[in-house]
Protein backbone atom coordinates (compact mmCIF):
# COMPACT_ATOMS: atom_id res chain seq x y z
CA UNK A 1 0.00 0.00 0.00
CA UNK A 2 2.62 2.47 1.07
CA UNK A 3 5.21 1.98 -1.63
CA UNK A 4 3.17 2.54 -4.78
CA UNK A 5 1.90 5.77 -3.17
CA UNK A 6 5.43 7.00 -2.92
CA UNK A 7 6.22 5.91 -6.44
CA UNK A 8 3.33 7.98 -7.79
CA UNK A 9 4.52 10.98 -5.84
CA UNK A 10 7.99 10.58 -7.31
CA UNK A 11 6.56 10.16 -10.81
CA UNK A 12 4.39 13.25 -10.41
CA UNK A 13 7.35 15.27 -9.16
CA UNK A 14 9.43 14.04 -12.11
CA UNK A 15 6.75 15.08 -14.59
CA UNK A 16 6.48 18.52 -13.01
CA UNK A 17 10.27 18.99 -13.01
CA UNK A 18 10.40 17.94 -16.65
CA UNK A 19 7.81 20.58 -17.52
CA UNK A 20 9.82 23.17 -15.62
CA UNK A 21 13.01 22.15 -17.42
CA UNK A 22 11.23 22.39 -20.75
CA UNK A 23 10.14 25.91 -19.82
CA UNK A 24 13.75 26.86 -19.00
CA UNK A 25 14.82 25.60 -22.44
CA UNK A 26 11.98 27.48 -24.14
CA UNK A 27 12.95 30.64 -22.30
CA UNK A 28 16.48 30.38 -23.63
CA UNK A 29 15.47 29.43 -27.17
CA UNK A 30 12.57 31.78 -27.84
CA UNK A 31 12.34 35.59 -27.79
CA UNK A 32 10.60 37.12 -24.75
CA UNK A 33 7.45 38.02 -26.63
CA UNK A 34 7.03 34.72 -28.39
CA UNK A 35 3.46 33.46 -28.24
CA UNK A 36 4.46 30.19 -26.52
CA UNK A 37 6.11 32.06 -23.67
CA UNK A 38 3.06 34.29 -23.32
CA UNK A 39 0.73 31.30 -23.32
CA UNK A 40 2.71 29.59 -20.57
CA UNK A 41 2.77 32.74 -18.48
CA UNK A 42 -0.91 33.52 -18.81
CA UNK A 43 -1.86 29.85 -18.48
CA UNK A 44 0.11 29.68 -15.23
CA UNK A 45 -1.72 32.69 -13.82
CA UNK A 46 -5.10 31.26 -14.80
CA UNK A 47 -4.12 27.93 -13.30
CA UNK A 48 -3.45 29.52 -9.92
CA UNK A 49 -6.68 31.50 -9.98
CA UNK A 50 -8.70 28.48 -11.12
CA UNK A 51 -7.23 26.28 -8.41
CA UNK A 52 -7.98 28.89 -5.78
CA UNK A 53 -11.58 29.01 -6.99
CA UNK A 54 -11.73 25.21 -7.01
CA UNK A 55 -10.63 25.15 -3.38
CA UNK A 56 -13.77 27.06 -2.46
CA UNK A 57 -16.34 25.97 -5.04
CA UNK A 58 -15.07 22.46 -5.59
CA UNK A 59 -13.58 21.30 -2.32
CA UNK A 60 -15.70 23.18 0.18
CA UNK A 61 -18.86 23.37 -1.91
CA UNK A 62 -19.32 27.12 -1.42
CA UNK A 63 -20.53 28.65 -4.66
CA UNK A 64 -18.77 32.00 -4.62
CA UNK A 65 -18.53 34.36 -7.56
CA UNK A 66 -16.31 36.99 -6.00
CA UNK A 67 -13.12 35.87 -7.70
CA UNK A 68 -12.70 38.92 -9.94
CA UNK A 69 -13.04 41.21 -6.92
CA UNK A 70 -10.29 39.49 -4.97
CA UNK A 71 -8.07 39.34 -8.05
CA UNK A 72 -8.62 43.05 -8.51
CA UNK A 73 -7.45 43.73 -4.95
CA UNK A 74 -4.33 41.65 -5.55
CA UNK A 75 -3.61 43.19 -8.94
CA UNK A 76 -3.87 46.74 -7.64
CA UNK A 77 -1.81 46.00 -4.54
CA UNK A 78 0.93 44.57 -6.68
CA UNK A 79 0.90 47.43 -9.17
CA UNK A 80 0.72 50.17 -6.55
CA UNK A 81 3.54 48.70 -4.47
CA UNK A 82 5.82 48.05 -7.43
CA UNK A 83 5.71 51.12 -9.69
CA UNK A 84 9.20 52.68 -9.50
CA UNK A 85 9.20 56.00 -7.69
CA UNK A 86 10.70 57.77 -10.67
CA UNK A 87 7.80 56.73 -12.88
CA UNK A 88 4.98 57.56 -10.48
CA UNK A 89 4.71 61.14 -11.76
CA UNK A 90 3.96 59.81 -15.22
CA UNK A 91 1.53 57.11 -14.16
CA UNK A 92 -0.43 59.23 -11.67
CA UNK A 93 -0.41 62.23 -13.96
CA UNK A 94 -3.86 63.38 -12.84
CA UNK A 95 -3.05 62.96 -9.17
CA UNK A 96 0.33 64.74 -8.83
CA UNK A 97 2.23 61.47 -8.68
CA UNK A 98 -0.06 59.88 -6.10
CA UNK A 99 0.53 59.47 -2.39
CA UNK A 100 2.75 56.41 -2.46
CA UNK A 101 6.32 57.56 -2.10
CA UNK A 102 8.08 54.21 -2.18
CA UNK A 103 8.30 51.07 -4.27
CA UNK A 104 8.85 47.67 -2.70
CA UNK A 105 11.31 46.30 -5.28
CA UNK A 106 13.42 49.45 -4.93
CA UNK A 107 13.32 49.32 -1.15
CA UNK A 108 14.40 45.69 -1.19
CA UNK A 109 17.12 46.41 -3.72
CA UNK A 110 18.72 48.57 -1.09
CA UNK A 111 18.87 45.56 1.24
CA UNK A 112 19.47 42.55 -0.98
CA UNK A 113 21.16 44.16 -3.96
CA UNK A 114 19.66 45.11 -7.30
CA UNK A 115 18.69 41.78 -8.89
CA UNK A 116 17.69 39.75 -5.84
CA UNK A 117 16.07 42.74 -4.16
CA UNK A 118 13.77 43.44 -7.09
CA UNK A 119 12.51 39.87 -7.09
CA UNK A 120 12.09 39.84 -3.31
CA UNK A 121 10.20 43.10 -3.48
CA UNK A 122 7.91 41.77 -6.21
CA UNK A 123 7.20 38.62 -4.24
CA UNK A 124 6.45 40.67 -1.14
CA UNK A 125 4.06 42.81 -3.17
CA UNK A 126 2.30 39.69 -4.45
CA UNK A 127 1.94 38.38 -0.91
CA UNK A 128 0.70 41.78 0.26
CA UNK A 129 -2.01 41.61 -2.40
CA UNK A 130 -2.93 38.15 -1.25
CA UNK A 131 -3.06 39.25 2.36
CA UNK A 132 -5.27 42.21 1.51
CA UNK A 133 -7.65 39.97 -0.42
CA UNK A 134 -7.64 37.45 2.42
CA UNK A 135 -8.30 40.15 4.99
CA UNK A 136 -11.22 41.56 3.03
CA UNK A 137 -12.57 38.02 2.64
CA UNK A 138 -12.29 37.63 6.42
CA UNK A 139 -14.37 40.76 6.94
CA UNK A 140 -17.16 39.99 4.49
CA UNK A 141 -17.06 36.27 5.21
CA UNK A 142 -18.90 36.49 8.49
CA UNK A 143 -22.20 37.80 7.13
CA UNK A 144 -22.00 36.39 3.62
CA UNK A 145 -21.05 32.78 4.33
CA UNK A 146 -24.19 32.18 6.34
CA UNK A 147 -26.21 32.54 3.16
CA UNK A 148 -27.62 29.66 1.18
CA UNK A 149 -25.68 28.55 -1.89
CA UNK A 150 -27.30 30.67 -4.58
CA UNK A 151 -27.58 33.75 -2.39
CA UNK A 152 -23.89 33.40 -1.57
CA UNK A 153 -23.16 33.43 -5.31
CA UNK A 154 -25.07 36.61 -5.94
CA UNK A 155 -23.79 38.35 -2.80
CA UNK A 156 -20.16 37.68 -3.69
CA UNK A 157 -20.82 38.76 -7.27
CA UNK A 158 -22.24 41.99 -5.90
CA UNK A 159 -19.25 42.35 -3.60
CA UNK A 160 -16.88 42.15 -6.58
CA UNK A 161 -18.81 44.94 -8.29
CA UNK A 162 -18.57 47.07 -5.14
CA UNK A 163 -14.80 46.58 -5.01
CA UNK A 164 -14.54 47.65 -8.62
CA UNK A 165 -16.56 50.79 -7.97
CA UNK A 166 -14.42 51.77 -5.00
CA UNK A 167 -11.16 51.28 -6.85
CA UNK A 168 -12.37 53.52 -9.62
CA UNK A 169 -13.57 56.17 -7.19
CA UNK A 170 -11.89 59.45 -7.90
CA UNK A 171 -11.37 60.28 -4.23
CA UNK A 172 -9.08 57.25 -3.95
CA UNK A 173 -7.24 58.39 -7.07
CA UNK A 174 -3.99 59.34 -5.31
CA UNK A 175 -3.75 55.69 -4.30
CA UNK A 176 -5.47 53.78 -7.11
CA UNK A 177 -5.19 56.26 -9.98
CA UNK A 178 -9.01 56.28 -10.22
CA UNK A 179 -10.29 54.89 -13.47
CA UNK A 180 -6.93 55.36 -15.24
CA UNK A 181 -4.63 52.46 -15.75
CA UNK A 182 -1.56 51.56 -13.74
CA UNK A 183 1.60 50.61 -15.58
CA UNK A 184 5.42 50.65 -15.62
CA UNK A 185 5.76 48.09 -12.81
CA UNK A 186 8.25 45.22 -13.22
CA UNK A 187 7.53 41.74 -14.57
CA UNK A 188 9.26 38.45 -13.80
CA UNK A 189 11.55 37.32 -16.59
CA UNK A 190 10.65 34.19 -18.48
CA UNK A 191 8.01 31.50 -18.40
CA UNK A 192 9.98 29.23 -16.06
CA UNK A 193 9.80 31.74 -13.21
CA UNK A 194 6.02 31.93 -13.60
CA UNK A 195 5.75 28.15 -13.54
CA UNK A 196 8.01 27.88 -10.51
CA UNK A 197 6.04 30.51 -8.63
CA UNK A 198 2.59 29.09 -9.31
CA UNK A 199 4.01 25.63 -8.67
CA UNK A 200 4.89 26.72 -5.15
CA UNK A 201 1.51 28.36 -4.55
CA UNK A 202 -0.50 25.47 -5.97
CA UNK A 203 1.74 23.11 -4.01
CA UNK A 204 0.68 24.87 -0.82
CA UNK A 205 -2.98 24.53 -1.84
CA UNK A 206 -2.46 20.81 -2.48
CA UNK A 207 -0.87 20.44 0.94
CA UNK A 208 -3.83 22.15 2.54
CA UNK A 209 -6.44 20.10 0.70
CA UNK A 210 -4.69 16.86 1.62
CA UNK A 211 -4.37 17.80 5.28
CA UNK A 212 -6.92 17.31 8.04
CA UNK A 213 -8.34 20.73 7.13
CA UNK A 214 -8.88 19.64 3.55
CA UNK A 215 -10.86 16.67 4.80
CA UNK A 216 -12.97 18.96 6.94
CA UNK A 217 -13.68 21.14 3.87
CA UNK A 218 -14.76 18.11 1.86
CA UNK A 219 -16.94 16.95 4.73
CA UNK A 220 -18.74 20.30 4.65
CA UNK A 221 -19.25 19.95 0.90
CA UNK A 222 -20.61 16.40 1.23
CA UNK A 223 -23.01 17.00 4.10
CA UNK A 224 -23.11 20.10 6.27
CA UNK A 225 -25.35 18.56 8.89
CA UNK A 226 -23.16 15.50 9.31
CA UNK A 227 -19.99 17.60 9.31
CA UNK A 228 -21.35 19.75 12.10
CA UNK A 229 -22.44 16.67 14.03
CA UNK A 230 -18.87 15.37 13.75
CA UNK A 231 -17.63 18.45 15.53
CA UNK A 232 -16.55 20.52 12.55
CA UNK A 233 -17.28 24.17 13.21
CA UNK A 234 -19.03 25.24 10.01
CA UNK A 235 -18.62 28.99 10.33
CA UNK A 236 -14.94 28.72 11.19
CA UNK A 237 -14.05 26.29 8.42
CA UNK A 238 -16.10 27.99 5.72
CA UNK A 239 -14.44 31.25 6.58
CA UNK A 240 -11.04 29.59 6.55
CA UNK A 241 -11.65 28.18 3.06
CA UNK A 242 -12.96 31.55 1.90
CA UNK A 243 -9.91 33.40 3.23
CA UNK A 244 -7.41 30.89 1.80
CA UNK A 245 -9.12 30.90 -1.58
CA UNK A 246 -9.24 34.69 -1.62
CA UNK A 247 -5.60 34.95 -0.61
CA UNK A 248 -4.54 32.90 -3.61
CA UNK A 249 -6.99 34.73 -5.87
CA UNK A 250 -5.31 37.93 -4.72
CA UNK A 251 -1.83 36.54 -5.46
CA UNK A 252 -3.13 35.32 -8.84
CA UNK A 253 -4.55 38.77 -9.54
CA UNK A 254 -1.14 40.26 -8.78
CA UNK A 255 0.49 37.87 -11.21
CA UNK A 256 -2.13 38.68 -13.83
CA UNK A 257 -1.25 42.37 -13.47
CA UNK A 258 2.39 41.39 -13.78
CA UNK A 259 1.73 39.46 -16.97
CA UNK A 260 -0.48 42.09 -18.58
CA UNK A 261 1.91 44.95 -17.93
CA UNK A 262 -0.94 47.37 -17.33
CA UNK A 263 -3.93 47.04 -15.06
CA UNK A 264 -7.29 48.73 -15.04
CA UNK A 265 -10.23 48.02 -12.75
CA UNK A 266 -12.58 48.02 -15.73
CA UNK A 267 -11.32 44.68 -16.98
CA UNK A 268 -12.09 42.76 -13.78
CA UNK A 269 -15.74 42.18 -14.56
CA UNK A 270 -18.03 39.36 -13.63
CA UNK A 271 -17.26 37.85 -17.05
CA UNK A 272 -13.76 37.16 -15.76
CA UNK A 273 -15.19 35.23 -12.80
CA UNK A 274 -17.47 33.30 -15.15
CA UNK A 275 -14.52 32.44 -17.38
CA UNK A 276 -12.55 31.03 -14.44
CA UNK A 277 -15.55 29.17 -13.08
CA UNK A 278 -16.08 27.53 -16.45
CA UNK A 279 -12.41 26.50 -16.55
CA UNK A 280 -12.87 24.87 -13.15
CA UNK A 281 -16.01 23.11 -14.34
CA UNK A 282 -14.38 21.79 -17.49
CA UNK A 283 -11.35 20.58 -15.58
CA UNK A 284 -13.57 18.83 -13.09
CA UNK A 285 -14.96 20.34 -9.91
CA UNK A 286 -12.73 19.07 -7.13
CA UNK A 287 -9.71 18.24 -9.28
CA UNK A 288 -6.65 20.46 -9.00
CA UNK A 289 -4.96 18.68 -11.89
CA UNK A 290 -8.04 19.31 -14.01
CA UNK A 291 -8.09 23.03 -13.22
CA UNK A 292 -4.41 23.42 -14.02
CA UNK A 293 -4.49 21.44 -17.27
CA UNK A 294 -7.66 23.17 -18.47
CA UNK A 295 -6.20 26.59 -17.75
CA UNK A 296 -3.26 25.90 -20.04
CA UNK A 297 -5.46 24.35 -22.74
CA UNK A 298 -7.91 27.20 -22.55
CA UNK A 299 -5.29 29.92 -22.79
CA UNK A 300 -3.31 28.07 -25.47
CA UNK A 301 -6.48 27.61 -27.50
CA UNK A 302 -7.70 31.15 -27.14
CA UNK A 303 -4.46 33.05 -27.48
CA UNK A 304 -2.67 30.87 -29.93
CA UNK A 305 -4.12 27.78 -31.59
CA UNK A 306 -7.57 29.12 -32.41
CA UNK A 307 -6.40 32.58 -33.45
CA UNK A 308 -7.10 31.59 -37.04
CA UNK A 309 -10.81 31.38 -36.32
CA UNK A 310 -10.81 35.14 -35.87
CA UNK A 311 -8.61 36.06 -38.79
CA UNK A 312 -10.01 34.22 -41.75
CA UNK A 313 -7.86 31.12 -41.97
CA UNK A 314 -7.96 28.04 -39.76
CA UNK A 315 -6.39 24.62 -40.41
CA UNK A 316 -5.86 25.67 -43.99
CA UNK A 317 -9.54 26.49 -44.53
CA UNK A 318 -10.12 29.99 -45.75
CA UNK A 319 -13.50 31.42 -44.94
CA UNK A 320 -13.17 35.11 -44.19
CA UNK A 321 -16.96 35.49 -44.02
CA UNK A 322 -17.30 32.97 -41.18
CA UNK A 323 -13.88 33.18 -39.54
CA UNK A 324 -14.10 36.76 -38.44
CA UNK A 325 -13.61 38.63 -35.21
CA UNK A 326 -15.31 36.83 -32.29
CA UNK A 327 -15.77 33.44 -33.93
CA UNK A 328 -13.09 31.95 -31.70
CA UNK A 329 -14.96 32.89 -28.53
CA UNK A 330 -18.23 31.71 -30.01
CA UNK A 331 -16.69 28.31 -30.73
CA UNK A 332 -15.03 28.09 -27.32
CA UNK A 333 -18.18 28.99 -25.44
CA UNK A 334 -20.17 26.45 -27.46
CA UNK A 335 -17.66 23.77 -26.48
CA UNK A 336 -17.98 24.89 -22.88
CA UNK A 337 -21.76 24.51 -23.02
CA UNK A 338 -21.40 21.01 -24.47
CA UNK A 339 -19.14 20.04 -21.58
CA UNK A 340 -21.43 21.65 -19.01
CA UNK A 341 -24.45 19.78 -20.37
CA UNK A 342 -23.10 16.43 -21.44
CA UNK A 343 -19.80 15.86 -19.62
CA UNK A 344 -20.78 17.16 -16.26
CA UNK A 345 -17.81 15.67 -14.45
CA UNK A 346 -15.39 17.57 -16.66
CA UNK A 347 -12.08 16.21 -17.90
CA UNK A 348 -10.85 14.84 -14.60
CA UNK A 349 -13.92 14.46 -12.41
CA UNK A 350 -12.47 14.66 -8.93
CA UNK A 351 -9.35 12.67 -9.76
CA UNK A 352 -5.79 13.94 -9.69
CA UNK A 353 -2.65 13.15 -11.64
CA UNK A 354 -1.52 10.78 -8.89
CA UNK A 355 -4.80 8.85 -9.22
CA UNK A 356 -4.21 8.37 -12.94
CA UNK A 357 -0.68 7.15 -12.35
CA UNK A 358 -1.85 4.82 -9.60
CA UNK A 359 -4.47 3.30 -11.85
CA UNK A 360 -1.89 2.67 -14.55
CA UNK A 361 0.40 1.03 -12.02
CA UNK A 362 -2.35 -1.15 -10.71
CA UNK A 363 -3.38 -2.21 -14.19
CA UNK A 364 0.18 -3.07 -15.06
CA UNK A 365 0.49 -5.11 -11.91
CA UNK A 366 -2.72 -6.97 -12.61
CA UNK A 367 -1.60 -7.71 -16.12
CA UNK A 368 1.72 -9.08 -14.93
CA UNK A 369 -0.06 -11.21 -12.35
CA UNK A 370 -2.39 -12.66 -14.95
CA UNK A 371 0.27 -13.05 -17.59
Amino acid at each position, binding site marked *: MKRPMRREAVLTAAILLLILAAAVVLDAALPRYHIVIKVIKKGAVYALVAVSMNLLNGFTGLFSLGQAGFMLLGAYSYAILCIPVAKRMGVYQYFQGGIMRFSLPELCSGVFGEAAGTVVGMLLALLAGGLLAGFVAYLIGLPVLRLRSDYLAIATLGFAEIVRTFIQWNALGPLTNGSNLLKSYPDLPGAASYLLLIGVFIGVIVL*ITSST*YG*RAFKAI*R*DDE*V*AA*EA*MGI*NLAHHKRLAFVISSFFAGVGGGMLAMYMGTVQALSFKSTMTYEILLIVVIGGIGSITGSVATSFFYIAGLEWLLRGLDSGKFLGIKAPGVFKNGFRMAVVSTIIMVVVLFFRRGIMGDRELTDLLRRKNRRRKEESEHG
Partner: protein
Amino acid sequence: MAEPVLHIENLTMQFGGVMAVNDLSMDIYPGEIVALIGPNGAGKTPAFNCVTGVYEPTNGKVEFLGAVIAESHPRGRMKKLYAGEHRGLYTRRVVYPPDAITKLGIARTFQNIRLFKSMSVFENVLTAMHLRRTSNLFTAAFRLNRREEAAQRARALELLQIVGLDEWKDEPAAALPYGKQRRLEIARALATEPRLLLLDEPAAGMNPQETMELTAFIRQIRAQFDLTVFLIEHHMNLVMDISDRIYVIDFGRQIAAGVPAVIQNDPRVIDAYLGGG
Protein backbone atom coordinates in the same frame (compact mmCIF):
# COMPACT_ATOMS: atom_id res chain seq x y z
CA MET B 1 -27.01 6.16 41.86
CA ALA B 2 -24.22 8.15 40.29
CA GLU B 3 -24.76 11.52 38.71
CA PRO B 4 -26.59 11.21 35.36
CA VAL B 5 -24.68 11.51 32.12
CA LEU B 6 -27.65 13.13 30.44
CA HIS B 7 -30.34 14.99 32.31
CA ILE B 8 -33.33 16.27 30.38
CA GLU B 9 -35.76 18.49 32.22
CA ASN B 10 -39.20 19.60 31.00
CA LEU B 11 -37.96 19.68 27.43
CA THR B 12 -40.49 21.14 25.02
CA MET B 13 -40.09 21.69 21.30
CA GLN B 14 -42.94 23.45 19.59
CA PHE B 15 -43.10 24.19 15.85
CA GLY B 16 -45.84 26.73 15.21
CA GLY B 17 -48.85 25.04 16.77
CA VAL B 18 -47.36 21.55 16.80
CA MET B 19 -45.87 20.18 20.00
CA ALA B 20 -43.15 17.86 18.73
CA VAL B 21 -41.76 17.25 22.21
CA ASN B 22 -43.95 18.04 25.18
CA ASP B 23 -42.53 18.38 28.67
CA LEU B 24 -40.11 15.49 28.45
CA SER B 25 -37.93 14.75 31.47
CA MET B 26 -35.46 11.93 31.74
CA ASP B 27 -32.11 10.86 33.17
CA ILE B 28 -29.53 8.55 31.69
CA TYR B 29 -26.88 7.14 34.01
CA PRO B 30 -23.30 6.12 33.19
CA GLY B 31 -23.00 2.87 31.28
CA GLU B 32 -26.71 2.51 30.64
CA ILE B 33 -28.38 1.70 27.34
CA VAL B 34 -31.61 3.67 27.27
CA ALA B 35 -34.17 3.53 24.47
CA LEU B 36 -36.65 6.19 23.47
CA ILE B 37 -39.57 4.60 21.66
CA GLY B 38 -42.93 5.70 20.38
CA PRO B 39 -45.13 5.52 17.30
CA ASN B 40 -44.16 7.36 14.12
CA GLY B 41 -44.23 11.11 14.58
CA ALA B 42 -44.14 10.83 18.36
CA GLY B 43 -41.27 13.31 18.54
CA LYS B 44 -38.27 11.07 19.07
CA THR B 45 -35.94 12.62 16.50
CA PRO B 46 -36.83 16.21 17.56
CA ALA B 47 -35.84 15.20 21.10
CA PHE B 48 -32.49 14.00 19.74
CA ASN B 49 -32.09 17.19 17.78
CA CYS B 50 -32.60 19.24 20.93
CA VAL B 51 -29.92 17.28 22.75
CA THR B 52 -27.41 17.56 19.90
CA GLY B 53 -27.97 21.25 19.33
CA VAL B 54 -29.65 21.00 15.93
CA TYR B 55 -32.77 22.61 17.42
CA GLU B 56 -33.01 25.14 20.17
CA PRO B 57 -35.73 23.86 22.51
CA THR B 58 -38.75 26.08 23.07
CA ASN B 59 -38.65 25.49 26.80
CA GLY B 60 -36.68 23.32 29.20
CA LYS B 61 -33.15 22.28 29.93
CA VAL B 62 -30.58 19.66 28.94
CA GLU B 63 -27.55 18.88 31.07
CA PHE B 64 -24.59 16.74 30.06
CA LEU B 65 -22.25 15.50 32.80
CA GLY B 66 -23.62 18.15 35.10
CA ALA B 67 -23.13 21.08 32.75
CA VAL B 68 -26.03 22.82 31.01
CA ILE B 69 -25.75 22.35 27.25
CA ALA B 70 -29.17 23.70 26.29
CA GLU B 71 -31.67 25.81 28.13
CA SER B 72 -34.36 28.06 26.79
CA HIS B 73 -37.73 29.62 27.38
CA PRO B 74 -40.44 30.69 24.93
CA ARG B 75 -39.21 33.66 22.96
CA GLY B 76 -40.47 35.87 20.13
CA ARG B 77 -43.52 34.46 18.42
CA MET B 78 -43.55 31.52 20.80
CA LYS B 79 -44.33 33.81 23.75
CA LYS B 80 -47.90 33.95 22.45
CA LEU B 81 -48.13 30.53 20.87
CA TYR B 82 -46.50 28.49 23.62
CA ALA B 83 -48.89 25.81 24.84
CA GLY B 84 -46.62 23.83 27.15
CA GLU B 85 -46.17 23.81 30.89
CA HIS B 86 -43.48 25.15 33.17
CA ARG B 87 -43.53 28.58 31.62
CA GLY B 88 -41.22 30.89 33.48
CA LEU B 89 -39.24 28.13 35.15
CA TYR B 90 -36.26 28.71 32.88
CA THR B 91 -34.85 32.18 32.61
CA ARG B 92 -31.45 31.56 31.13
CA ARG B 93 -30.76 30.89 27.50
CA VAL B 94 -27.92 28.49 26.73
CA VAL B 95 -27.31 27.55 23.12
CA TYR B 96 -24.47 25.40 21.89
CA PRO B 97 -24.08 24.63 18.19
CA PRO B 98 -23.95 20.91 17.25
CA ASP B 99 -20.17 20.91 16.77
CA ALA B 100 -19.56 22.27 20.27
CA ILE B 101 -21.81 19.60 21.75
CA THR B 102 -19.95 16.89 19.86
CA LYS B 103 -16.75 18.29 21.25
CA LEU B 104 -18.15 18.00 24.77
CA GLY B 105 -18.62 14.28 24.16
CA ILE B 106 -22.01 13.54 22.57
CA ALA B 107 -21.86 11.84 19.19
CA ARG B 108 -24.75 10.73 17.02
CA THR B 109 -25.83 8.80 13.97
CA PHE B 110 -28.67 9.77 11.67
CA GLN B 111 -31.98 8.16 10.85
CA ASN B 112 -31.40 8.67 7.13
CA ILE B 113 -27.71 7.82 6.82
CA ARG B 114 -25.55 10.88 6.31
CA LEU B 115 -22.06 9.73 5.37
CA PHE B 116 -19.50 11.85 3.54
CA LYS B 117 -20.33 10.31 0.20
CA SER B 118 -17.35 11.40 -1.86
CA MET B 119 -14.87 10.03 0.66
CA SER B 120 -13.56 6.55 1.27
CA VAL B 121 -14.62 4.53 4.31
CA PHE B 122 -11.28 5.26 5.93
CA GLU B 123 -11.50 9.01 5.29
CA ASN B 124 -14.97 9.14 6.78
CA VAL B 125 -13.59 7.94 10.10
CA LEU B 126 -10.46 10.04 9.83
CA THR B 127 -12.47 13.20 9.20
CA ALA B 128 -14.38 12.68 12.42
CA MET B 129 -11.09 13.02 14.31
CA HIS B 130 -10.59 16.55 13.02
CA LEU B 131 -12.25 17.99 16.12
CA ARG B 132 -9.63 16.50 18.47
CA ARG B 133 -6.71 17.97 16.50
CA THR B 134 -4.01 19.99 18.17
CA SER B 135 -2.59 21.15 14.85
CA ASN B 136 -3.45 24.46 13.24
CA LEU B 137 -3.73 25.25 9.55
CA PHE B 138 -0.03 26.00 9.25
CA THR B 139 1.29 22.93 11.03
CA ALA B 140 -1.24 20.72 9.25
CA ALA B 141 -0.45 22.08 5.78
CA PHE B 142 3.30 21.82 6.20
CA ARG B 143 3.07 18.40 7.83
CA LEU B 144 4.50 19.49 11.17
CA ASN B 145 1.73 17.43 12.75
CA ARG B 146 3.10 14.21 11.33
CA ARG B 147 2.93 12.35 14.62
CA GLU B 148 -0.67 13.34 15.31
CA GLU B 149 -1.70 12.49 11.75
CA ALA B 150 -0.06 9.08 12.01
CA ALA B 151 -1.74 8.43 15.36
CA GLN B 152 -5.11 9.40 13.90
CA ARG B 153 -4.62 7.12 10.93
CA ALA B 154 -3.69 4.23 13.19
CA ARG B 155 -6.69 4.92 15.40
CA ALA B 156 -9.04 5.12 12.41
CA LEU B 157 -7.80 1.78 11.15
CA GLU B 158 -8.25 0.29 14.61
CA LEU B 159 -11.84 1.57 14.75
CA LEU B 160 -12.56 0.07 11.35
CA GLN B 161 -11.20 -3.25 12.56
CA ILE B 162 -13.42 -3.07 15.63
CA VAL B 163 -16.56 -2.49 13.55
CA GLY B 164 -15.37 -5.02 10.99
CA LEU B 165 -14.98 -2.69 8.05
CA ASP B 166 -11.20 -2.73 7.62
CA GLU B 167 -11.48 -4.79 4.46
CA TRP B 168 -13.56 -2.06 2.83
CA LYS B 169 -11.45 0.84 4.01
CA ASP B 170 -10.54 2.16 0.57
CA GLU B 171 -14.00 1.73 -0.92
CA PRO B 172 -16.11 4.84 -1.45
CA ALA B 173 -18.48 5.13 1.51
CA ALA B 174 -21.50 5.33 -0.78
CA ALA B 175 -20.63 1.96 -2.32
CA LEU B 176 -21.06 0.03 0.95
CA PRO B 177 -24.20 -2.05 1.45
CA TYR B 178 -26.82 -0.50 3.68
CA GLY B 179 -26.05 -2.37 6.88
CA LYS B 180 -22.34 -1.59 6.58
CA GLN B 181 -23.10 2.07 6.02
CA ARG B 182 -24.89 2.08 9.38
CA ARG B 183 -21.85 0.48 11.01
CA LEU B 184 -19.61 3.05 9.39
CA GLU B 185 -21.78 5.81 10.81
CA ILE B 186 -21.27 4.31 14.27
CA ALA B 187 -17.51 4.02 13.69
CA ARG B 188 -17.44 7.63 12.58
CA ALA B 189 -19.33 8.70 15.70
CA LEU B 190 -16.90 6.72 17.88
CA ALA B 191 -13.99 8.53 16.25
CA THR B 192 -15.11 11.76 17.90
CA GLU B 193 -14.35 10.11 21.28
CA PRO B 194 -17.83 10.42 22.79
CA ARG B 195 -18.97 9.66 26.32
CA LEU B 196 -22.57 9.42 25.19
CA LEU B 197 -23.60 7.87 21.89
CA LEU B 198 -26.95 8.73 20.33
CA LEU B 199 -28.23 6.23 17.79
CA ASP B 200 -31.20 7.28 15.65
CA GLU B 201 -32.89 4.08 14.47
CA PRO B 202 -29.70 2.05 14.05
CA ALA B 203 -31.58 -1.06 12.92
CA ALA B 204 -33.82 0.61 10.35
CA GLY B 205 -33.95 -1.49 7.21
CA MET B 206 -32.07 -4.44 8.73
CA ASN B 207 -33.18 -8.07 8.63
CA PRO B 208 -33.51 -10.11 11.88
CA GLN B 209 -30.04 -11.61 11.48
CA GLU B 210 -28.42 -8.20 11.03
CA THR B 211 -30.46 -6.82 13.93
CA MET B 212 -29.14 -9.52 16.21
CA GLU B 213 -25.60 -8.77 15.17
CA LEU B 214 -26.22 -5.10 15.81
CA THR B 215 -27.45 -5.86 19.34
CA ALA B 216 -24.24 -7.69 20.13
CA PHE B 217 -22.24 -4.94 18.48
CA ILE B 218 -23.80 -2.16 20.54
CA ARG B 219 -23.14 -4.11 23.73
CA GLN B 220 -19.56 -4.68 22.62
CA ILE B 221 -18.77 -1.05 21.93
CA ARG B 222 -20.43 0.04 25.16
CA ALA B 223 -18.03 -2.16 27.08
CA GLN B 224 -15.02 -1.39 24.95
CA PHE B 225 -15.39 2.40 24.92
CA ASP B 226 -16.98 2.85 28.34
CA LEU B 227 -20.01 4.40 26.67
CA THR B 228 -23.47 5.38 27.64
CA VAL B 229 -25.95 4.73 24.81
CA PHE B 230 -29.21 6.51 24.08
CA LEU B 231 -31.14 5.15 21.12
CA ILE B 232 -34.33 5.56 19.17
CA GLU B 233 -35.66 2.38 17.65
CA HIS B 234 -38.70 0.73 16.12
CA HIS B 235 -37.49 -2.87 16.23
CA MET B 236 -39.09 -4.03 19.47
CA ASN B 237 -36.95 -7.15 19.63
CA LEU B 238 -33.81 -5.09 19.65
CA VAL B 239 -35.18 -2.57 22.12
CA MET B 240 -36.45 -5.16 24.59
CA ASP B 241 -33.27 -7.16 24.26
CA ILE B 242 -30.72 -4.43 24.68
CA SER B 243 -32.19 -1.65 26.79
CA ASP B 244 -31.62 -1.25 30.48
CA ARG B 245 -34.52 1.18 30.59
CA ILE B 246 -37.08 2.45 28.12
CA TYR B 247 -38.94 5.73 27.80
CA VAL B 248 -42.10 5.74 25.71
CA ILE B 249 -43.50 8.91 24.21
CA ASP B 250 -46.58 9.62 22.15
CA PHE B 251 -47.56 13.01 20.72
CA GLY B 252 -44.37 14.36 22.26
CA ARG B 253 -45.41 13.40 25.77
CA GLN B 254 -43.99 10.69 27.97
CA ILE B 255 -46.55 7.93 28.53
CA ALA B 256 -44.42 5.32 30.26
CA ALA B 257 -40.95 4.61 31.56
CA GLY B 258 -39.23 1.64 33.08
CA VAL B 259 -37.41 -1.62 32.49
CA PRO B 260 -38.32 -3.63 29.37
CA ALA B 261 -40.40 -6.24 31.23
CA VAL B 262 -42.68 -3.55 32.63
CA ILE B 263 -42.98 -1.59 29.38
CA GLN B 264 -43.85 -4.71 27.44
CA ASN B 265 -47.02 -5.19 29.45
CA ASP B 266 -47.97 -1.57 29.98
CA PRO B 267 -51.50 -1.05 28.58
CA ARG B 268 -50.78 2.61 27.72
CA VAL B 269 -47.90 1.58 25.50
CA ILE B 270 -49.92 -1.09 23.77
CA ASP B 271 -52.70 1.44 23.27
CA ALA B 272 -50.34 3.99 21.76
CA TYR B 273 -48.94 1.47 19.33
CA LEU B 274 -52.23 -0.15 18.38
CA GLY B 275 -54.05 3.16 18.19
CA GLY B 276 -56.72 2.06 20.65
CA GLY B 277 -58.39 4.14 23.36
